[in-house]
């Protein structure tokens, strides 16, 4: 295992020290592993909390700041944070208008946030929850834990963050969050496995001439192992299931071409070119796009595509100012 780390058990602790040192606009609670805005938002506005296992950076800590999240809870690598972390964060960021929990649909995350919601509710904080589940790689969702929450989480945190900043109430913010989640679809692939630091070796072995289609963001094997193909074919294998799942024509879309962590930007742009061409051919109108590493899987090489069916309201919220370490414009 070749990583820029000290003791594999200390990766999260050590990385949070770096986050704190790099970003004066953030405040890090090292005991509870929470990243806050240094300057809380105004009283009376809905606050946004997200969190999840570490190893997906910049998600979620990189999206804490004006226009997005108020705080993010960091779990161990690929392990949901715990209810006490979430409860603490919820209490701290509540400005009296309630807190929206943004939860990716994994059994662990859902259960821990559920417990946190109960605890915070008992303490008088109004909590609402949106569970993202946009991964079309998961089929037969009635026979599974449901679809995984992946790329749409990034777009949702931006859009809903802008709505909260505007001063909308908890019901409106939550309704918008659900609408965004329902309007987005993602599909991912891997060229290589990642290596969980504490495990010390790759989660799965992938021969040089094979790739995994339909992976999530936890280094899990995907739905199919298929022969390695060119960018053009890979793009088809990602875009086709997305378009098959939802009709994106007739509305402006926001598209994200996301890197899994170890694929360089030149490859991500190349993939985006392929994806944009396919979407164009299918009559999908791309209004906004994002190319880069936004929701990663440690040192996995690969990428994912997210398409979100937007409307004028969503585009306006998308364009609203945001100032986080991972996404920033207008500020």
């Amino acid at each position, binding site marked *: 295992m070749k990583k820029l780390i000290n003791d594999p058990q200390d990766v999260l602790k050590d990385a949070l020290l770096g986050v704190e040192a790099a970003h004066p606009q953030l405040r890090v609670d090292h005991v509870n592993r929470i990243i806050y805005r240094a300057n809380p938002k105004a009283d009376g506005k809905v606050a946004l909390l997200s969190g999840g296992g570490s190893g997906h950076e910049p998600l979620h800590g990189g999206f804490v700041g004006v226009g997005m999240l108020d705080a993010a809870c960091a779990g*161990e690598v690929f392990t949901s*944070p*715990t209810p006490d972390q979430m409860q603490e964060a919820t209490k701290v960021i509540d400005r009296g208008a309630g807190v929206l929990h943004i939860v990716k649909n994994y*059994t662990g995350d859902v259960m821990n946030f559920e417990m946190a919601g109960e605890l915070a509710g008992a303490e008088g904080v109004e909590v609402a929850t949106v569970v993202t589940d946009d991964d079309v790689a998961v089929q037969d969702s009635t026979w599974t834990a449901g679809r*995984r929450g992946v790329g749409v989480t990034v777009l949702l945190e931006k859009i809903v963050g802008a709505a909260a900043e505007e001063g909308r109430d908890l019901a409106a913010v939550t309704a918008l969050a659900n609408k965004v989640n329902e309007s987005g679809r993602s599909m991912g692939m891997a060229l290589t496995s990642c290596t969980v630091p504490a495990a010390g070796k790759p989660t799965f072995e992938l021969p040089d001439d094979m790739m995994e289609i339909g992976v999530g963001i936890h280094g899990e094997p995907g739905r199919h192992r298929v022969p390695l193909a060119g960018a053009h074919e890979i793009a088809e294998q990602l875009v086709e299931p997305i378009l098959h799942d939802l009709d994106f024509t007739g509305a402006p879309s926001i598209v994200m071409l996301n890197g899994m962590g170890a694929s360089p930007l030149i490859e991500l742009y190349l993939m985006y070119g392929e994806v944009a061409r396919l979407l164009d051919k299918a009559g999908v109108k791309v209004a906004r796009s994002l190319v880069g590493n936004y929701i990663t899987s440690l040192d996995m090489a690969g990428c994912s595509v997210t398409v979100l069916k937007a409307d004028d309201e969503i585009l306006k919220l998308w364009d609203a100012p945001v100032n986080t370490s991972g996404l920033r414009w207008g500020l």
Partner: protein
Amino acid sequence: MSTATVPLDRLVSWLGGYRDAVIEQRAYLTELDSAIGDADHGANMARGMTAVMDKLGAGVPATADELFKSVGMTLVTSVGGASGPLYGTFFLRMGMSAGAIAEFDGAALAAALRAGLDGIVARGKAEAGDKTMFDALAPGLGAFDAALAEGASPAEAAAAAATAAEAGRDATKPWVARKGRASYLGERSAGHLDPGAASSALLLRCLADALGSS
């Protein structure tokens, strides 16, 4: 020789033995979780049980309700993932079921374990055959109850439970997972043991060991 009642310190030995076992089998549990999950189950259980025993090292509560509440809360707040709330709930419910006692008879232990399993089901909604820890615990507790009904001591019942849980764990191998992250793999989840079934069969084996030794 096993005895008819189980004092609390025997259950503390159980927890200590389980801590040692998950640390020892950490790589194995992670291996299982690598095949159909996200390669953290070994680390999760080792971290959680280490935290549990560190907490108890600072002082062991005198009654079962306090002991297991402490164990459950420590797991809930130190593990995360799916196993944190599930194992945490298991112990929290055990404590609630047992009440402020300092010694279990067989029936009380069976009831506490059963309450724990019910808590797991309440949290995780697992059903038989979903390929989860339920599939080791449910047959294990079934065997515990059956052994008691036939007059066995708690230690004998625990040994029966462990054996049944191990069979339940092994039975998960060919199944397609329907709960937890293994379910995302669909057909590809078949052919591998469920990591949570493995760690919970181990939990009952440690119980048998703790009650069986004297």
